[in-house]
């Protein structure tokens, strides 16, 4: 597979000199309660407020069961919050829409469509002419490193390849925000690393806003401008940490960078502390 070519460095805006960013997504005092049985309620999210700036790569990091995916689904419009509201560019989110493109851990490809058919689905739905949609989709498939696999069915692909198709399928309809729900969670370590690198290369080219849910500290620090740490039962925002590391980021350089290491260690320590606090209760 060909690696995604690195973008020319003059197109990259360094983090420090970025123009004042405007809010694209506002999460305003959102709570989510699930009724698990007649008498017991499970509070998945408790009073979450968060603003996401346009063009930022924001990770939501937390242990399983902290409601981080639920928060993403609320922004996606797939789930309505019990109270509070989420807004996209000032408009209340009432349902899913092509301005917010999801990428799921489960891939959720259409198995009856080929790779090309999957990627073309969104543009065709938006009314893009067939020839045009196909040309765009072929370019995207090449960008995610799957040239030559256009006519394969999802069943014939490995997990990593499926997630590449899912990413291309979502990018194909030009969402303003990418909503990634533990996208690399089902992949083996090696494949995950490669997809992280390629995602970063793709992202650094057009700097779409990304909301990225993960439980991996390294992944969150490596990819993000901002890490939102969540704690569980009830799901709350514990800390929001700006990751002030230069871009473009290269894994080989970053792993040796003491600033990167410090972020990882600090965040892990904070989670450990909250675990211990949990024991004390």
């Amino acid at each position, binding site marked *: 597979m060909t690696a995604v070519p690195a973008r020319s460095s003059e197109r990259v805006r360094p983090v420090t000199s970025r123009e004042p960013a405007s809010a694209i997504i506002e999460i305003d005092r959102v709570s989510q309660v699930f009724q698990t049985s007649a008498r017991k309620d499970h509070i998945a999210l408790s009073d979450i407020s968060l603003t996401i700036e346009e063009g930022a790569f924001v990770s939501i990091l937390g242990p399983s069961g902290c409601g981080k995916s639920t928060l993403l689904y609320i922004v996606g419009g797939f789930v309505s919050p019990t109270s509070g509201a989420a807004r996209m560019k000032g408009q209340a989110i009432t349902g899913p829409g092509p301005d*917010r493109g999801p990428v*799921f851990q489960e891939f*959720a490809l*259409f*198995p009856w469509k080929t790779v090309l058919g999957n990627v073309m689905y969104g543009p065709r739905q938006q009314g893009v002419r067939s020839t045009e949609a196909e040309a765009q989709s072929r370019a995207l498939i090449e960008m995610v490193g799957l040239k030559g696999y256009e006519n394969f069915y999802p069943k014939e692909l490995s997990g990593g390849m499926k997630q590449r198709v899912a990413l291309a399928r979502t990018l194909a309809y030009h969402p303003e925000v990418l909503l990634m729900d533990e996208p690399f969670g089902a992949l083996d370590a090696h494949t995950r690393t490669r*997809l992280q690198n390629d995602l970063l290369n793709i992202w650094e080219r057009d700097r779409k806003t990304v909301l990225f849910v993960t439980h991996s500290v390294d992944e969150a620090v490596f990819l993000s401008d901002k890490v939102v740490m969540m704690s569980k039962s009830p799901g709350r925002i514990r800390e929001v940490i700006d990751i002030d590391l230069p871009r473009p980021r290269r894994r080989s350089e970053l792993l040796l960078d003491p600033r990167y290491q410090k972020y990882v260690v600090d965040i892990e320590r904070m989670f450990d502390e909250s675990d211990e606090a949990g024991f004390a209760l």
Partner: protein
Amino acid sequence: MMSTAALTRRAAPVLACLGLLAAWQVASLALKNDSFPTAIEAIRAIPDILGDKESLINILASLRRMALGFGAAVLISIPLGLLMGRSRSVAAFFNPLLMVIYPVPKAALMPIIMLWLGVGDITKTLVIFLGVSLPVIYHSFEGAKAVEEKMLWSGAAMGLSPAQRLVRIVLPAALPEILTGCRTGLVLALITMITSEMIARQSGAGNILFNALDMGQYDTVFAMIIIVGAMGICFDAIFEKVRARLVRWSEPQFDLPLSFS
């Protein structure tokens, strides 16, 4: 060139049929019973039936009812099953109804339907329709229920309306399961077709069979059984070909993923 293993596999069904006919022949010769003709006598009677215009009209009338009943059942049952699979309230409404009808042999309803609609084509077609509907509804329901939520969300994010999602995501995603139901339905159509003609004799393949039985023409009876059996095998084989084409993407030979990240 075909390998020995492939050749054996191809020949196996033919050998099984020949074996069955041979066993039949031997059993019949040993029993020497008038009502149990030999296999050869039964096979000899087949050309007589198929060469007779009256019989052919009867068989074609059966097939027409079967096609109508099966077609109408599929057209109504698939949408109903899919709706039930995706909407809890639709399922809550229809499920008890279907649970009551499911174990009732559809032919048992026939005398009542005959009282209402007479002994003609409508009654028989309706019985076939009922026989086919339930497995198709059930499998469509199960198939629609199993459709991954995230797949529907992906469609919703692309701007598909709920109705579009039902037709363009739930239907294709559930298709392998739906076609399994249709395959069961097809065999049931043949069974209810014959049974309905047994109860209301007037025309049809079942009519030939039971008239021959009344008149003691046992070679014709067994010849008809062979003909009906052969029709069943043919329909099933044709359906299987169509099915395999439609859901090629879900077939197990596609299961081996490539080694590539």
